[in-house]
């Protein structure tokens, strides 16, 4: 019994690491641009397909393809910012939400046209190896993914905390006008923020492809979990994304084992609604979610 629970918790933490990595990008953009990117999950889908193409066409191992997928995703993020996001930074919420939503619709359906709805996966021999630590089984893929997610989060933390770039990104989020007054180019800071957010997915995608197969609407499945993660952790909070990701990873794995039905999933969304209503700023949030001008 306790062994089973230990197994579930360990699997949950490993999964949660990936959730945290994916959430970081969304929360980063929220913190600096005050905008929720509804196409975030769809960009993860792009990254997964890129890793899949690298593997099937060029025979590049997914763990190696990070070096290709991540920069490509960074550029994709920068271009998205320039074409779609920058023009609407001062627009009403409804414009911002539906710009990213429309982008998601386009990306999903272009993927459907290009790759069909068939599930695509990468079969690595090493993906089948399993380690056993004190009765708890850990798959190789989940372990590597967790380690990489941890490393990426650590690097991002150092970048945000100690570099001029990181400081200017945070300053842009806190007070754009004051940031400009001290000589920070807020436009560049925002551009790089969006690129980084997308690049983090470029790390997550290749990590996920040996574990999950990808399909055009996989982003929808992920974005909903990610919403729960960042709302729980607190929008815009770095710590919140990590703690929220790990928590939701464990909660999901354990509850999926014991209650296998759609009702279980429904309870997760009720939890999301409850947090937003009772404590909209989550665990560590600095977000101002309630107030006048709620458009």
């Amino acid at each position, binding site marked *: 019994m306790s062994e089973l629970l230990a197994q579930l918790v360990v699997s949950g933490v490993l999964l949660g690491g990936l959730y945290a990595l994916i959430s970081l990008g969304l929360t980063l953009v929220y913190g600096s641009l005050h905008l929720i990117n509804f196409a975030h999950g769809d960009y993860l889908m792009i990254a997964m397909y890129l890793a899949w193409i690298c593997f099937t066409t060029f025979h590049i191992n997914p763990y190696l393809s990070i070096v290709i997928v991540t920069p490509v995703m960074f550029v994709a993020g920068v271009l998205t910012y320039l074409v779609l996001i920058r023009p609407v930074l001062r627009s009403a919420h409804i414009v911002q939400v539906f710009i990213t939503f429309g982008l998601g*619709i386009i990306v999903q359906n272009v993927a459907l046209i290009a790759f069909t709805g068939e599930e695509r996966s990468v079969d690595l021999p090493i993906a089948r190896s399993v380690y056993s630590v004190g009765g708890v089984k850990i798959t190789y893929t989940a372990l590597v993914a967790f380690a990489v997610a941890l490393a990426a989060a650590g690097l991002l933390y150092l970048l945000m905390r100690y570099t001029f770039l990181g400081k200017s990104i945070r300053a842009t989020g806190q007070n754009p006008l004051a940031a400009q007054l001290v000589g920070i180019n807020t436009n560049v800071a925002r551009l790089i923020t969006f690129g980084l957010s997308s690049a983090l997915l470029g790390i997550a995608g290749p990590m996920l492809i040996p574990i999950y197969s990808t399909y055009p609407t996989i982003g929808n499945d992920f974005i909903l979990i990610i919403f729960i993660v960042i*709302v729980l952790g607190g929008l815009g909070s770095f710590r919140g994304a990590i703690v929220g990701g790990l928590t939701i990873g464990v909660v999901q794995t354990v509850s999926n084992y014991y209650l296998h039905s*759609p009702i279980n999933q429904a309870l997760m969304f009720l939890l999301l609604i409850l947090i937003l*209503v009772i404590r909209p700023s989550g665990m560590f949030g600095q977000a101002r979610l309630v107030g006048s001008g709620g458009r």
Partner: protein
Amino acid sequence: MPDRLLRAAGVVLVLVVLGFAGQAVAVNSYYATVVFSMCFWATTATAYNLSAGYAGELSLGHGAFLGLGAYSSTLLFTRGHISPWLGMLVGAALASFVALVIGVIAIRLRGPYFAIVTLAVVLVFNLFAAGLPKLTQGAIGVNISGKPSFANVIFTHHWAYVLLMFGLLVLVLAGLRSLVRSRLGYQLAAYRENEDAARSLGIATTRVRVVALMVSAAVTAVAGSLQVQFIQFVSPDSAFSVGFSVQVALMAIIGGLGTVYGPVLGAVLIVYLGQLLQPLVERLAGLDQVVYGAILIAVLLFLRRGIAGLGRQLRLRARLDRAWEAGAARFATRVKDGAS
């Protein structure tokens, strides 16, 4: 002037399409389906417009209201042999109640969070509908069958459904038109212009917005009931649908939020475009959605009030240009006078 012209053109377009299709309806059920679809989307987009365009509620949850209407009339009919007319009212009441609850607990949230909450509401309903097979027959869905009669809202001729849906659309449009010029309409306008000023004048903005959401929900539910009577089938994914929630918003935005006829224009245009693209979509599934998404983004970037607001936007631009030229001319004369 161009605004009025454009609006008239829109109404004429709708009439032409309806008239053309009306002739074909009797002989071809395909046209009936298309026209029904136009009326259905026009009705729901208008309902969405009331909450999003007039009350500033960024809802992604209208699928919940649609589903409540669809499932209420269906389950009451198939299990309790209660006329769908009554079921429709029950559905509308339930949807309004859910809208009231959403409004009371979540309307204070800023736009994007309200969107996430309403999105979660649709998913909760969807998952419960799929997860309670004893009540709803689960993910398989429910077929509606019965003797054709007025009380059963089952007709042998497709045009009967078309007429009903068209009637609902006319009713809803007339309602919205008079609402805009009513106390509630002005209160909503005051809220949109400046919430703080509206509150300081004693307008209970929250209550007014909740009422708008409830009305919008009720209309969406009735449209949902009529739609399932037409299709004679309902399932969690067809009724409590995120896809519907997004599509209805897309049509309303493309047509023009906050304009009375804009969403009708948007709905007719998108359904018509869907028919045009159909042969291509059969080879390239998803192509239509790419086109819709691109139009949505283009409208959001360049047409603040959708297609229906195009006239006003052009007129403003023209006036601005004229003022600029007049100013420049005055400046030029003054410079000339000063020089001489």
